[in-house]
């Protein structure tokens, strides 16, 4: 049996009330009003960092060395050429003898990556494949995309043992349907008429995919516990369910109201949402949309009980929220307006890529060392043990800090250090099990930081060197989620 063996999700902590966006830009296009709120990635988050966060959730309790492939789906890669999946695999500290690939250029590819993972395991070329999907799509100021697009990520592990939901079948349709597009080098989507997208796009392809799947798998829609499908339009989302003859209780909430439309990761996030409430025997259908559609049928097994409640998933991330009270902050976080950083803030020292290569596991994986003689964990990797009365030379073994919690030894909120979200908060972390280092902190208000508070590590974007086209990533300390 091949199917889902674990799942995880990530929703950035910041949520903005759409009324706030409308108040700022509604004067321009008054028809853009939408109710609810949406999730906004912090200034130091992007698709890669969110993909890592969802993947870490998915990897809870799993042996990372058993992963044979990592597929990443997004339409918002930081690089045109440098594989995001490779960055993510290093962040997870996976083995090097694995297969990695980016699935991109269409918001459909989250499910395509899932199907490819299934095919790989089914064919026996991999035992465990982790799929991550994330998107951080932006709309122009005053556009409906700006109101509706939300940021988020999901991760699904496909394997053949401990399957919590087996893949029973799939049905795909592919059309060069150009409802929206973004050419090389562009930041914003172009979009054709809404009525065209609704009538020819969502209402036709999603129904075609689900009907095709039902027919192929000899499935009566009445026997489906949950159908998870995306739709930009809340009204049409309901309408599609009706046309398929689904009871509203069978339709997974598309989270348009509290997260927004999250692009590539959207179907996978909905799938995670469905799995969180699933019980053994449930049929779950997940459908994507974008230049066609993939529909996948999963059957939930008894094993689901081992995973349920042990992941942060959708629910815990939804609950861990902070209100973003400024529209201007939101667009500054995405670099959509030029902001004054000062001469000092603009200085980005060159990244030595040969250094990054040597130190990749330390920098991207937060992997330190542990002295085999005295057992002291230390970061970064040391050749000579830092414990004063030890000092053993070249007696180190790898030691992962990324998955360790710690407590905040000390901290400050700094008004002088340049930050896109001042004050810059940073501190020294003492890790559970030993080891100490200093880190930036993020997703936190100065008022809520306390000495000794529990923290965990989060993979973030450290800097963008626009001149050299480098996105630098490292780990920051955050308050423990949930």
């Amino acid at each position, binding site marked *: 049996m091949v199917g889902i063996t674990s799942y995880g999700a990530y929703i950035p902590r910041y949520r903005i009330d759409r009324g706030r966006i409308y108040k700022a830009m509604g004067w321009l296009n008054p028809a853009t009003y939408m109710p609810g709120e949406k999730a906004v990635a912090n200034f130091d988050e992007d698709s890669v960092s969110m993909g890592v966060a969802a993947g870490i959730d998915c990897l809870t309790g799993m042996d990372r060395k058993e992963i044979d492939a990592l597929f990443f789906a997004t339409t918002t890669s930081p690089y045109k050429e440098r594989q995001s999946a490779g960055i993510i695999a290093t962040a997870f500290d996976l083995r090097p003898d694995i297969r990695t690939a980016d699935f991109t250029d269409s918001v459909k590819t989250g499910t395509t990556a899932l199907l490819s993972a299934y095919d790989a395991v089914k064919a026996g070329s991999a035992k465990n494949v982790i799929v991550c999907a994330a998107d951080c799509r932006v709309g122009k100021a005053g556009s409906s995309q700006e109101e509706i697009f939300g940021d988020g990520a999901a991760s699904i592990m496909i394997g053949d043992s401990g399957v919590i939901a087996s893949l029973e079948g799939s049905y795909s349709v592919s059309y060069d349907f150009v409802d929206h597009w973004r050419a090389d080098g562009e930041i914003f989507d172009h979009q054709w008429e809404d009525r065209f997208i609704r009538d020819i796009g969502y209402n036709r392809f999603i129904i075609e995919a689900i009907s095709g799947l039902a027919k192929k798998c000899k499935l009566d829609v009445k026997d489906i516990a949950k159908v998870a499908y995306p739709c930009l339009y809340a009204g049409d989302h309901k309408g599609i369910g009706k046309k398929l003859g689904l009871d509203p209780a069978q339709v997974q909430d598309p989270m348009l109201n509290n997260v927004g439309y999250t692009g590539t990761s959207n179907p996978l996030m909905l799938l995670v949402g469905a799995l969180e409430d699933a019980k053994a025997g449930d049929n779950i259908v997940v459908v994507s949309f974008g230049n066609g559609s993939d529909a996948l049928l999963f059957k939930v097994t008894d094993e689901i009980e081992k995973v349920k409640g042990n992941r942060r998933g959708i629910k815990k991330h939804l609950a861990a929220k902070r209100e973003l009270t400024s529209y201007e902050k939101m667009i500054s976080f995405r670099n959509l307006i030029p902001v004054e950083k000062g001469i000092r803030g603009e200085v980005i020292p060159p990244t030595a890529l040969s250094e990054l290569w040597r130190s990749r596991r330390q920098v991207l994986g937060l992997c330190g060392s542990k002295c085999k003689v005295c057992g002291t964990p230390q970061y970064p990797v040391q050749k000579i043990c830092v414990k004063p009365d030890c000092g053993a030379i070249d007696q180190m073994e790898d030691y992962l800090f990324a998955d360790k919690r710690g407590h905040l030894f000390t901290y400050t909120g*700094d*008004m*002088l250090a*340049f930050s896109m979200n001042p004050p810059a908060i940073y501190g020294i972390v003492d890790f559970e099990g030993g080891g100490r280092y200093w880190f930036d902190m993020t997703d936190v208000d100065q008022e809520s930081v306390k000495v000794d508070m529990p923290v965990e590590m989060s993979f973030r974007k450290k800097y963008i060197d626009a001149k050299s086209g480098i996105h630098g990533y490292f780990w920051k300390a955050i308050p423990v989620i949930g």
Partner: protein
Amino acid sequence: MAFFQTSGVLKVRRIYTHEDLNKEVRSIAGYYIPEEEKRLNYNGREVLYVIGHAAIDNSCCGVGGCRYALIPGYVVAWKNKTDETGKPVSEVETIVDEDSKTELAGILKEKETITQIEFW
């Protein structure tokens, strides 16, 4: 400074000197300028706060600044005395309760154009 105990919470009374407003106070790292002394009704009491701005333009090691609210505390006696230099002084009770601090910070962030809030 005087300490007194009421219902388990340690309260601290302090003297607040009303300095000249809109006058630069300079340090080697920068300067600040208190602009306005304001009073706010909160939970049936009066809270004194000062609005000002600061520039940190010569500090080791950075550049910054802020527009701030300093909150000395609840007004106990308003300009009831003068100090040795003839400046009027008020007596305040510092705000120590964390919930009140959080709430007041929220109120002032909405009401005033500020980026820093500091309680005495």
